[in-house]
């Protein structure tokens, strides 16, 4: 029975394959570091965070992917995964601001249910040209990594987010009154 939050939260499974962490990432919204698995309000994540990649070798470059595997809703994730942000060539010891933004940051705006928003970090072997995907929905992080030979992820974290005033739950009218 795993005690890894990424496994328990099914990020490993729904988005990623099991991997061994070999890098660190810190996601900072409004000067506050996000704890893995915590919940944030949409109003707190409107603007892109600063993603720090601590380390020692500035020559190592990283690719950052941010996806929502629970689009449009966790019970019915037909649009899994929705791509929110894609930045490449981020040098170690710096942060996402120093990279190459391929897909701009889109603010999370979950309408139904409680969504997970996952940040994945890949280590690049070379400075590489990554083509901007044609659309954000139905993105597949696994396929993306395979396509660009990024190898397994080196770090990942996620936070939960639901509608601003809560009640991401069922809001449609029930067709049969069973109770």
């Amino acid at each position: 029975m795993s005690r890894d939050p990424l496994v328990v939260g099914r990020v490993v499974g729904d988005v990623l394959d099991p991997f061994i962490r070999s890098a660190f990432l810190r996601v900072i919204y409004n000067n506050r570091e996000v704890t893995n698995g915590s919940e944030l309000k949409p109003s707190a994540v409107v603007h892109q965070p600063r993603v720090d990649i601590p380390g020692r070798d500035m020559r190592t470059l990283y690719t950052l992917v941010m996806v929502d595997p629970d689009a449009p809703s966790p019970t019915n994730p037909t649009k899994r995964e929705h791509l929110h942000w894609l930045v490449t060539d981020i040098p170690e010891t710096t942060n996402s601001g120093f990279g190459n933004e391929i897909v701009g940051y889109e603010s999370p705006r979950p309408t139904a249910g409680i969504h997970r928003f996952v940040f994945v970090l890949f280590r690049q072997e070379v400075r590489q040209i990554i083509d901007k995907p044609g659309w954000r929905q139905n993105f597949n992080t696994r396929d993306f990594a395979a396509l660009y030979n990024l190898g397994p992820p080196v770090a990942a974290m996620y936070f939960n987010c639901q509608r601003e005033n809560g009640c991401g739950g069922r809001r449609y009218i029930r067709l049969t009154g069973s109770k």
Partner: protein
Amino acid sequence: MEEVWKDISLSTLHQDLEAKPTSTNPFRGIVLQDLLAGDFNEPPPVSAPLNDLPLPRFTGLSLNSGRLMVHPNSSNSNTNGGASSAGPFAYCSKKRALERQPEASFGHGHGNGADRRKKRMIKNRESAARSRARKQAYTYELQREVARLLDENRKLKRTFEELRLAMEAQVPAKRTLQRTSTAPF
């Protein structure tokens, strides 16, 4: 994954219903548990009455653990644990759904309602499982953070102590002002 779950619960339960009459024998419980655990390939254990199963351990993923294909080496122990913890709870509510089934088959309208209710129940179960997983994941993360911070704190305190001692050893060097001539003339 959710289609798999629906396949197990709806179609195989229908088969089960036709094969055996509804009765409260422990055998049915085993079959359901195996369905819930998702053990398609292995035949259900022939004689394993409910009270022989291990006590239900609280797992954050009681229903989903049987479907967890993440760690291949945890398959047997995990599914058993998942089955046993899902068993008592799932067994009771599934039985209620099954008992409603014979009445539902009388009218088409009734059948539809039971179907929807079942789907609703499955969705609710998944939602509950996700909620438990969320809570559990956050708890684990916090435990990790606490352990890490305590460790860092200990190390920093030790470093501080060492530095302080080093400082004290150095201080009694020059305490008084002395006159020296530095002017060239």
